[in-house]
């Protein structure tokens, strides 16, 4: 039993909140769904184990790794670490800017430093727990095939999570001190997006740039570059300290003990250092709403416009001023960087590279349109105002759809135009694919629309799993259709029909069909 006000008591309180938060996110707040979610989780875990078996099963027997194995394992660990830092940055930023129980904590006769230290440890724990959950199938498969020593990888994942959380905490506080609470939110979100994508994109960019011949699909393989002679030549000897994390993953007890010990110590130091002033930072962030630090803009003349045009303009203004959306869009655009580079490298040679770019564009457009459509259709912050305006409901919906498609055209037109210089046919395929994928994602969001606060965008996937899955399948189908069409294959009809079936099925399952 823990006594109120003690660290253990706070830890219990925080972990209970974190667990309920996670559960609510997984079940979209519905109690009756808990069992269904548990069943789905078991099925997903089983499928992940099968996937892991096919991917890493053959490495289970590795005992004394060579330099190539160490490079690849370290690369995977870096990838996991960058994703965890990205996730941790999001969590820490959310912790700073969410008011929730701040008043209660700060007005209670308890050292705020203690509470915030526990809260930060809980953040680190939840990030590590999620990473453990994702890594578990791979570690289990390796343990079954190669022995219990592989279980050490669980410890290595904990160590990676601890370092990621420590970096995120330190980085956020450093940003706070350097640029202030107002800019930190936006910059941290952008940083989270960039860090999350940077490692994968970096590998692809290096692969494309270092390719001697005309780059092909193989060059886009994320890990291909890790096994190249150039990288191996730069890598240190197998005895180097650099490989300790990789050795820890491989089950070397000494390396694991040191890696884990150092990582936890780094996290503890970060928490102790940050917790001291955390309350001040949180107060500064949460008082933003009261202090109105927005720059003063000069009032401009009102512009005459029809209600539809006003609605479109309003949507675009809100999208432009949404920091979270900016970071997400930036991430989407970052993923377009390797194909853009590929296009630039293959300029003049046409053909294969252009075909590779088409599905990337279409997929990105579908995903971005889904997010924008949710914001415009479900994330209406003044639903009563719009609903009481003397404008027909269909005109309102039409204006919102136009706003989404307009934004997509604005974002993707430069890429399609660039593609047109390489191949007009590929550009046409991409343009049709982008518009179809965007229209399909918008339609899905329209059928599953549910009134929500714009600020709940992060949790939009939980409001309807059907819509989320359908959106993904639809984007994949249209990306495949566009790619095959660009390649001149009549097989394009197959994913096209699949895309239509996805839409028809989704429409049937949607609440709007009843």
């Amino acid at each position: 039993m823990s006594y109120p006000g003690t660290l253990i008591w706070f830890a219990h309180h925080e972990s209970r909140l974190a667990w309920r938060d996670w559960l609510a996110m997984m079940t979209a707040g519905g109690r009756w769904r808990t069992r269904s979610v548990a069943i789905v989780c078991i099925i997903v875990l089983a499928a992940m184990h099968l996937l892991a078996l096919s991917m890493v099963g053959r490495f289970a027997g590795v005992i004394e790794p060579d330099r190539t194995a160490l490079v690849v394992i370290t690369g995977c660990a870096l990838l996991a670490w960058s994703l965890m830092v990205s996730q941790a940055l999001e969590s820490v930023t959310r912790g700073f800017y969410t008011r929730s129980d701040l008043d209660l904590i700060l007005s209670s006769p308890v050292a705020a430093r203690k509470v915030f230290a526990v809260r930060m440890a809980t953040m680190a724990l939840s990030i590590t727990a999620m990473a453990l959950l994702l890594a578990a199938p791979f570690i289990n498969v390796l343990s079954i095939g190669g022995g219990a020593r592989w279980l050490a990888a669980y410890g290595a994942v904990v160590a990676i999570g601890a370092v990621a959380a420590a970096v995120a905490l330190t980085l956020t506080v450093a940003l706070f001190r350097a640029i202030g609470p107002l800019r930190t939110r936006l910059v941290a979100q952008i940083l989270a997006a960039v860090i999350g994508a940077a490692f994968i994109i970096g590998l692809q960019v290096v692969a494309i740039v270092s390719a001697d011949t005309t780059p092909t699909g193989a060059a886009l393989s994320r890990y291909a570059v890790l096994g190249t002679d150039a990288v191996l030549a730069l890598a240190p000897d197998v005895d180097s300290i650099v490989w300790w994390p990789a050795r820890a993953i491989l089950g070397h007890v000494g390396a694991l003990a040191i890696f884990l010990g150092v990582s936890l110590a780094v996290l503890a130091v970060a928490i102790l250092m940050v917790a001291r002033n955390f309350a001040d930072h949180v107060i500064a962030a949460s008082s933003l709403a009261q202090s109105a630090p927005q720059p003063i803009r000069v009032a401009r003349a009102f512009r005459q416009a029809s209600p539809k045009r006003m609605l479109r303009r309003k949507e675009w203004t809100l999208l432009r001023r949404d920091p979270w959306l900016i970071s997400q869009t930036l991430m989407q655009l970052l993923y377009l960087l390797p194909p853009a580079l590929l296009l630039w490298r293959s300029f003049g040679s046409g053909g294969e590279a252009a075909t590779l770019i088409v599905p990337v564009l279409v997929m990105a457009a579908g995903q971005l349109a889904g997010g924008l459509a949710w914001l415009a259709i479900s994330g209406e912050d003044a639903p009563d105002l719009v609903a009481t305006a003397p404008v027909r409901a269909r005109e309102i919906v039409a204006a919102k759809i136009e706003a989404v498609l307009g934004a997509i055209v604005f974002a993707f037109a430069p890429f399609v135009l660039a593609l047109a210089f390489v191949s007009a046919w590929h550009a046409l395929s991409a343009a049709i694919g982008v518009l179809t994928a965007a229209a399909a994602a918008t339609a899905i969001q329209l059928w599953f629309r549910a009134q929500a606060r714009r600020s709940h965008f992060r949790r939009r996937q939980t409001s309807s799993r059907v819509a989320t899955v359908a959106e993904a399948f639809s984007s994949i189908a249209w990306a495949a259709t566009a790619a095959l069409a660009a390649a001149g294959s009549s097989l394009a009809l197959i994913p096209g029909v699949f895309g239509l079936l996805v839409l028809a099925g989704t429409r049937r399952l949607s609440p709007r069909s009843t």
Partner: protein
Amino acid sequence: MSPALSIRGLVKHFDRPAVDGLDLTVQKAEFYTLLGPNGAGKTTTLRMVAGLLRPDAGTIHIHGIDALKDPVAAKRCVAWISDEPMIYDKLNPLEYLEFVAGLWGIDAREAQARAHELIGWLGLGAQATQRCEGLSKGMRQKVALAGALVHDPSVIILDEPLTGLDAGSARQVKGVLRERVKNGGTVIMTTHILEVAERMADRIGVIAAGRLIAQGTLTELRDQAGRGAASLEDTFLALVAEQAAA
């Protein structure tokens, strides 16, 4: 001459009857306050009038326009304000007013003049070009009120508009509403602050269990409740208790 609002046999069921055959008439240039205990059906009634909910049965006429058959025409002369001001955080008050005026199809120059007048009237001058995310609840409520007035509606419907406002802001809002009525507008408002109803309303309606159980001036309500010089609070509680006992 048709009344500002005429409701006949209005019915709305959720899991239970929320509004149960309600009849209500509000005249032009009248300040009408709707009182009732929690869950009596006040907000549901007003949401149906504003076009936010579709009734199961009954009719709603606003200035003689059938709001169920021609909602767009009816909405043209109505403004709705809820207790939770729903405005766009990323727009500033002037941009918000421009947007509202655009939705109601108001001429841009006319809207701009009216917006500046309202901004000054409501004491929002210093915040006019700052994003709404930085405004306090009272200021947000004032922005919402300015939005409701910028298209010059003849009927203003307010659901608990004074919730969370400080004394100064509440007085300002009350002043603006009274001014509208003086200039020929109609205000229909729900409130739990009986003192506001007592001071401001020309007529008061009392709703309980989805039905209008009493209405009239304060004196008429006292007479109905059989309480000579009682306060509105005593009168209201007596009427509701009587209905509950029936």
